């Protein structure tokens, strides 16, 4: 109601204070309404997945859990009903997708956990719902389409064989996860039966998804980070670097050796990387600024939650201003207390392949209702730059030389070009026990696929991990050619 401005002496004097109070409350309520709307819009899924939320049970009773499918539409998980009306969750590929697709009884894991909200909701057309209501049946839950490729998953799993370890195959320019293998694996259909044993056995790590949660010493693959920091600190002179390798290096009590005590002789920056010369990298490490190296590692997502929608662990490096030389020696070659998840190593490799830009890895591609209409689509999104394009280019050519004249020469001379870095990460107290690493991409010029492999206790990365990478690259390019 407008107060008239006419000065007639009989009107009430305009009370500014009332107006001020009224506006304050209007603002307060506007803020609160905005908050409520925002909170609901952003927290809906997270809240429905909370085990204290009884609404989940209501949806489960009303809808039949939706299916999980591969990128091409092969069924990875579905719920079927037997004659007596008992529901059973079926996983047609048994053990193959155990960790990535996960399970939905005795808790939830993998896509079953991540996309639970969509699986238990139904956006089926009303006409279909009405028909089912009449027949006394449940509504079909929405279907979750993943980015997974059954063929690549199969090849990767077979290649890893009986070894424990993990393999991650991704697209560097989109962040799509094509395959994710973790061994030992399990059959999600039997999870209820083996649950008691799994819980009883404290040492069992079967349920751990090694690809995203396994923390391993990075070994020589860490030289990617050391090289990047060396380039950053010596932008003009790094290419003139040289060192004479005698096979070993000592600082006080600590001594490091090149793998199997190899003496590399005179090496430059490129050959140090290609031949994975430990002593040369330790030598570089001594010169590096601890604080700026720490910043670089933080920029590469060490010590941080990864930008992914599924469970992952945080990779760690102990680096501070007063890190001693003896520790720097170990850190520079990826030994000591440093630990990394295969997922993070894959993400860094992808960023190198993608001109320094990291695309956030994702496995859930889109959701469809039972009639095949799209309910929601997840597009790839950029996390941002992990490094400058020029830096990525330098690392790329270093990794190319690893294939051309270094430890990954088994990838040389094929129908496609490849680049990468091997690693043989020593662990435990017994000398010589090492995990075999490889992380790399192909083709070099326009990378389309990125592979990260760890094989526990196998030995040298070049001998064990690289051949697996080759099989995956082969399968991928053959598939593309067809």
């Amino acid at each position: 109601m407008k107060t008239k401005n006419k000065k007639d002496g009989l009107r009430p004097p305009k009370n500014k204070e009332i107006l001020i109070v009224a506006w304050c409350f209007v603002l307060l309520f506007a803020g609160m309404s905005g908050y409520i709307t925002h909170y609901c819009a952003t927290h809906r899924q997270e809240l429905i997945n909370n085990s204290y939320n009884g609404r989940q049970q209501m949806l489960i009773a009303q809808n039949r859990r939706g299916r999980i499918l591969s990128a091409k539409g092969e069924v990875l998980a579905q719920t079927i009903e037997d004659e007596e009306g008992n529901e059973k969750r079926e996983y047609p590929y048994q053990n193959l997708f155990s960790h990535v697709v996960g399970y939905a009884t005795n808790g939830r894991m993998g896509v079953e956990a991540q996309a639970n909200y969509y699986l238990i909701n139904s956006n089926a057309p009303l006409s279909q719902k009405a028909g089912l209501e009449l027949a006394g049946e449940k509504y079909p839950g929405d279907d979750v389409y993943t980015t997974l490729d059954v063929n690549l998953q199969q090849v990767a799993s077979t290649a890893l064989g009986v070894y424990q370890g993990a393999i991650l195959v991704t697209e560097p320019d989109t962040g799509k996860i094509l395959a994710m293998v973790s061994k030992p694996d399990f059959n999600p259909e039997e999870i209820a039966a083996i649950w008691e044993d799994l819980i009883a056995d404290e040492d069992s790590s079967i349920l751990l998804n090694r690809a995203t949660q396994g923390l391993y010493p990075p070994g020589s693959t860490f030289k990617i980070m050391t090289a990047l920091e060396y380039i950053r600190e010596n932008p003009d002179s790094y290419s003139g670097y040289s060192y004479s390798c005698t096979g070993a290096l000592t600082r006080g009590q600590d001594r490091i050796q090149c793998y199997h005590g190899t003496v590399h002789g005179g090496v430059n920056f490129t050959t140090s990387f290609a031949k994975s010369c430990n002593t040369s990298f330790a030598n570089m490490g001594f010169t590096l600024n601890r604080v700026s190296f720490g910043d670089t590692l933080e920029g590469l997502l060490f010590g941080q939650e990864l930008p992914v929608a599924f469970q992952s662990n945080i990779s760690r490096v102990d680096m501070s201003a007063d890190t001693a030389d003896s520790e720097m020696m170990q850190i520079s070659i990826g030994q000591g207390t440093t630990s990394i998840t295969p997922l993070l190593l894959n993400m860094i490799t992808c960023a190198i392949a993608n001109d320094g830009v990291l695309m956030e890895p994702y496995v859930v591609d889109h959701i469809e209702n039972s009639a095949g209409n799209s309910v929601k689509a997840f597009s790839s999104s950029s996390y941002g730059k992990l490094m400058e394009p020029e830096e990525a280019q330098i690392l790329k050519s270093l990794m190319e030389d690893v294939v051309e004249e270094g430890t990954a020469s088994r990838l040389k001379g094929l129908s496609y070009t490849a680049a990468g870095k091997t690693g043989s990460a020593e662990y435990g107290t017994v000398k010589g026990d090492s995990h075999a690493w490889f992380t790399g991409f192909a083709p070099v010029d326009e990378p389309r696929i990125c592979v990260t492999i760890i094989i526990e206790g196998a030995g040298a990365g070049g001998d064990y991990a690289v051949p697996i990478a080759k099989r995956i690259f082969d399968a991928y390019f053959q598939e593309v050619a067809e």
Partner: protein
Amino acid sequence: MSHLEIYVSEYSRYVITLLIILYTYESFAVFRYAKEEQRKGIYARQCFLMFAFHFSCFVTICFETGDITYLFFYAFQQIMLYAFTVLYRMLYPKSNRLVSNNMSMLLCIGFVILTRLDMTKAIKQFIIVTGSLAIALVIPFFVHKFKLLKKMKWIYALAGVAALGIVMILGQTTYGSKLSYSIAGITFQPSEFVKILFVFYIASSLHEESGFFEVFTTAVVAAAHVISLVISKDLGSALIFFITYVLMVFVATRNYLYVLAGAVGGSGAAYVAFQVFRHVQVRVQAWRDPWSVIDSDGFQITQSLFAISSGGWFGLGLYKGTPGSIPFVETDFIFSAIAEELGILAAISLILICVSTFLMVMAIASGTRDKFYQLIAFGLGVTYIFQVFLTIGGGTKFIPLTGVTLPFISYGGSSILTTIVMFAVVQGLQIIRREEEEALELALKKRRMKKRRLQKQTQGNQKLSRSASQLNDLKHRNDLAGDEIEDEE
């Protein structure tokens, strides 16, 4: 039947949301016009939308439960509200229809959600509302005619302090807070009624003089109210009294320093309360991170968040959610139940209807010339809107939970009766304001006529005795003189 049921429950959500949004729009469109006569069309549309909303909700309830008898309950509500509206307009043609429409709309929402939550409580609520509205019929008359209201400040103060004091000493403890006592089987929660007395006390103390002495005296009495509420662990009411007091002093004195003093004193008191009282610490902890105490102190608020978030824009539909999982859903957390089943859009509309009501009360306050009535309208408006803020903000984790009811909607006799009486008082003030206005119009009219008469006289004289050029000159002077007169006023 089955087919129809699924379509009804699917589409009714959209219809209900649309109706409440349109109603809300109208309740702000009202402010475009200054006079009640111009707003008639809007009020008529509001009544229709309210009726359609209420009816759609009950039809949905019948479909969802498969029980047609709910329509009888609906019919009773409709007849009661209609009778009230007609009687009110007959008795008080000068009352503000936005306030009474919004009140009816909020009561409708309350009936719908209570029927869904707990039929027994809904029926009790219906009886209480009927009784309260009957009382509300006489209150504007009383406020209008009973001039002694201005003089009874010590009666208000003593009655208020005594009522709260009795609860503090003898009250029944419900869930850790002393809130009520029973007389002849009926349980009262005096902090509700005392709100009105308190506003009357402050207004009667400050409407003539509002120097430091008056403010100091009222501060002592206000402190007595607030402290006895804090000791009874009724923190929500304590806050309402405090804020009402500070803002009323601000409007009465027009002095920003009192707001500053209130803010400093309030923060200090809040800090001390946090240090001293464990139940305050628990509330704050449950607000900052309810997930860490989801089993215990955070249970209510997390369940409330589950409910609010699961509804989406249009809600799950009546009977489709599980609001029953929230403890005290029908009193402190009724907003969450509404958000879950009627949707976020309806819930936000509900907030906006409350804000529209508040703004109209503020408009009534600022248009009232008599300071006593102005302060009462302002104080009651602030009491109302701040309580709405506490309950909705608390249930949505916007602010720590204090456990007060949502006026007109939550279940609870004392709360309903108090709010209805409060707004009946406001209607009384509106009538006073309109009479002031009419008196003013009359006075202005008289003055204008007098002026015109005077002008005619001079003009007549001019025609007789002066030439045309002289006339112009005089006219000019006359205009100037007229301006001067107006400036003096």
